[in-house]
């Protein structure tokens, strides 16, 4: 108990809260694209984290080839945008009317394909950009990772941009409409195929953005998707699959549970708490924590 109260009233408790927020920024960025795609296309891309992984590799190799980092990041985003487009065009569009389990199996197959492809092409070596953005000293005890701050800021900007895109633009309105009722939209003459492709490409671009921020923080290897894929999926479900704002907020709830649990108990307890919270949420609000009641 003394240990708990000492931890609670320590300056490091504040650092933990902030770190939770910053981790939330990373996870939120990961979940945005996946949620957008599910909301519109109604297919869960199990392979989404692997597209991010391929984006990380693209950025790494462009940067190591002498391309300036901002351009390398743009290159990464371009590649994941194309991958998002192709994933829908070549695979998802063929299983749109299939049973959900078949859709899951198809994207699950893509996951292994992307992993295997990365292993064959890039090898099993861990790659690292070797770029550090340093940290920001808040006090003599508290330092914040600049990369995490950047991720947080980018997540915020992206969610605002997406909000305006979806609420103010013609295409955004069409995307929102199709996510609400896909059949009626077809009857009204809307080209749903084009909208699906566009959404998948935007989802791919968001994966590229996430790849850029992850490449600054993590080693790149063919299996990095395993560290993020399941968590991203859980966050999307917790926030309400397809609900972008819900997913965005759920990422912060999930991240705070991980960091606070890890701070007050063993690190693993943070994950246990977060996943227990998820299970309980599914019992109480199976439609998601932030889903609007219909």
């Amino acid at each position: 108990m003394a240990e708990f109260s000492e931890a609670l009233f320590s300056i490091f408790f504040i650092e933990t809260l902030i770190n939770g927020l910053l981790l939330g920024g990373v996870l939120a960025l990961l979940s945005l694209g996946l949620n957008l795609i599910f909301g519109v296309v109604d297919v869960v891309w199990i392979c989404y984290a692997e597209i991010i992984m391929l984006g990380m590799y693209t950025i790494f190799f462009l940067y190591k080839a002498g391309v300036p980092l901002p351009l390398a990041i743009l290159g990464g985003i371009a590649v994941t945008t194309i991958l998002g487009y192709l994933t829908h065009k070549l695979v998802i569009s063929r299983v749109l009317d299939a049973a959900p389990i078949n859709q899951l199996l198809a994207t699950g197959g893509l996951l292994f394909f992307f992993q295997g492809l990365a292993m064959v092409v890039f090898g099993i070596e861990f790659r690292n950009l070797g770029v550090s953005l340093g940290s920001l000293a808040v006090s003599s005890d508290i330092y914040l990772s600049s990369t995490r701050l950047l991720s947080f800021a980018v997540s915020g900007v992206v969610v605002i941009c997406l909000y305006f895109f979806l609420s103010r633009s013609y295409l955004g309105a069409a995307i929102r409409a199709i996510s609400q009722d896909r059949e009626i939209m077809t009857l009204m003459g809307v080209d749903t195929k084009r909208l699906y492709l566009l959404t998948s490409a935007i989802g791919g671009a968001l994966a590229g953005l996430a790849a850029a921020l992850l490449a600054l923080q993590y080693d790149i290897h063919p299996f990095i998707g395993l560290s993020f894929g399941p968590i991203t999926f859980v966050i999307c479900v917790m926030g309400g699959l397809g609900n972008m704002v819900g997913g965005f907020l759920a990422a912060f709830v999930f991240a705070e549970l991980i960091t606070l649990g890890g701070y007050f108990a063993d690190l693993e307890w943070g994950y246990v708490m977060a996943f227990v919270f998820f299970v309980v949420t599914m019992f109480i609000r199976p439609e998601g924590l932030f889903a609007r009641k219909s």
Partner: protein
Amino acid sequence: MREFRVFQRVTAIATMALALFAFAINATAQDKKIKIGVIYDYTGPLAGGGSDLQALGAKIMIDHINSQGGVEGYKIKAIYADAQSKPEVAINEAVRLIEQEKVDMLLGFYSSAQCVPVAAKVDALKKFMWITTCISPAVLKGRKLKYVFRPQVHGGQFGWLSVEFLHANAKSKMGVEPGKLRLAIIHEDGPYGSGVAGGNASKAKELGMNVVLKEGYSATAPDLSSLVTKLKRKRPDVILHTGYNPDISLFLRQAKEQGLKFKALIGHGAGYGVADKLYDALGNDVDHFFNVDPVSIWLLDPKSLKPGLAAITEKVGKEYVKAKPSTKTKSAHVGMAASNAHVFFTDVLPRAIKKYGGIDAESLRKAALETNIPVGGTLLGFGVKFPKTGENDMMGQNTMASPVVMQYIKRKVYVAWPKALQTIDPVLPLPKSSPYTK
């Protein structure tokens, strides 16, 4: 005269018969082979974390032995299998190799999480298993396995040595009484990390040293910031870390960004054993970190080894660079597997064939139990001797294996401890140039 001709003919026929017999014997000998299932992680996160280098070391040695004509007339037929960094795959592959490929024995294994279940399974199937790498004490401790042998150092020894090193150098190098040195033990939470951390903790207790934090984490955790914050709150002088990769580079990167300061960091093999990767990921921040491992075979004084071994070390080094031309700092991993495989092929296997008449598990077991290689008799420098039944609670564990403490400075590896093997006076505490300096 006629009798002489008859004698000549008989002699000629006998000579021809003998020649044919010898040829047949020779042909049979050449046809003899020992089928060995070699299991490492060629894919998955553990592959790049050191397993592929261990696999390379074992392969180099197998090829070397075959190029020398094999062992007592037996050629080695290796069947390589990928455990994919997953314990369940390792078990399945082990069973497949034994039951379908009909291998005579198994060799290899990088991950302790795989070794623990596989060792029990292989022993139950009454097959011989020679472990080159995985170090968790849990693989052998208290299990009374009959057919599983490990010439490798065990994890507890890794943990003991780093604490002994600190105890011996705290006062002289850091100006702190050993009992007042604040130690933090962090580790991946599988059998490997837990085994080493257990060794750290038990030795610290024995020597009256102060452990301010002991905590495990999952090697695939995407965030270690809470652990770093906790370490900052506990203000340790020394961090004793056991991990694979990429958790090590994630921890060190987050530690730097969050401003964690300490006087020394000691890693314990696996990810810390791949200096090239550490330097690639973290640059010169890695300078002056320590790593506990069996000594890198290229750091040993050739004169301290049995005649002939230095040439093999050199050959292993050449083959290593040929297979991985981008190597800047030779990893201890390759030499470790090569040396431990060499012990089997040059000591255990010949005795099993010559003295016990075969390559079945029982013959190999009897031969292994008679192994008695003195210090200097292996590429790794340490001796090899396995306990007799009931002698201790770790049947199959080499009682003469010992690790060393190495230090990384400017991409070079030096032996810092024990004193007898030192190639450098250890730099302790971290110099001011390190971003982690307390």
